C-alpha cells in the first residue's frame, strides 16, 4: 500500500524567511514523489518531482525538495518566501512497482506568508 502524510495543516512564515512544508511517504517499492500547488478555486499546478538521482530536486518558482530515503521524507523548501507563495500545497507519491496508475495525494498544507 502507498500513502503520503503532510503533518501540518497550516504553516505560517514571514516574508523573506525560509519555508519548509513537510511530507512523509510510505510505499512498498521505489517512491516517485511529487509536489503540487493550488491557488483558490484553481486546478493543481506541478512544482517538482523526484524520480531518481540527486536527492535535492529543484522546481518551479524557486522551490526545491529534498528526498531522504532513511526518513522517508520529501520536504518542500524555499530559501526566501514571497507573499504570492501563499497557497495550498500537496505532496503526492506513486509506487514505482505497484501503483502505476494512481498518484496518492496528501491532505494538503496551507501556507500563509505574512508580509
Amino acid at each position, binding site marked *: 500500500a502507498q500513502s503520503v502524510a503532510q503533518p501540518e495543516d497550516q504553516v505560517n512564515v514571514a516574508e523573506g524567511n525560509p519555508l519548509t512544508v513537510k511530507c512523509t511517504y510510505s510505499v512498498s517499492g521505489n517512491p*516517485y514523489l*511529487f509536489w*503540487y500547488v493550488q491557488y483558490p*478555486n*484553481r*486546478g*493543481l*499546478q*506541478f512544482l517538482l*518531482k523526484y*524520480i531518481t538521482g540527486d536527492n535535492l530536486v529543484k522546481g518551479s518558482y524557486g522551490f526545491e525538495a529534498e528526498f531522504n530515503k532513511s526518513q522517508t521524507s520529501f520536504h518542500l523548501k524555499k530559501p526566501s518566501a514571497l507573499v504570492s507563495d501563499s497557497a*495550498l500545497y*500537496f505532496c503526492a507519491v*506513486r509506487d*514505482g512497482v505497484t501503483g*502505476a*496508475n*494512481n*498518484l496518492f*495525494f*496528501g*491532505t*494538503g498544507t496551507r501556507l500563509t506568508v505574512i508580509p
Partner: protein
Amino acid sequence: SQTIHQWPATLVQPVGSPLSLECTVEGTSNPNLYWYRQAAGRGLQLLFYSVGIGQISSEVPQNLSASRPQDRQFILSSKKLLLSDSGFYLCAWRVGSLNTGELFFGEGSRLTVL
C-alpha cells in the same frame, strides 16, 4: 503545447438531477486521463482513469460514472445527484511515462448539489 479544458466551471444542481462534466485535452494523442474529486478544499480522491477510448477504470464505487467517447475527451456523469456529490472535480492527464510522469490538471469544475 498541450492544454486541458474543463466545463462548466461552476454548477449548481438539485438533488436527483443528472450531471455531465466534460474534459478535453489538446496537443497530445492517446493521453491517460483522470477524474479526481476534492472535498472541502483538501485531499484529492481518484474517481476514474482511462488509458484509451472506451477504457474506464473505477477506483471507488459511487454514484458517478465516466466515459471516454473520443481519444481526448473524458466525461463524468451521474443519472441522479446526491448531496454528497458536491465538491471540486478535477480532470488531469499524465505527462510522460507511466510511473514517472506528472499529472497536468484542468482548472476544475465546482459542483454544488442542493
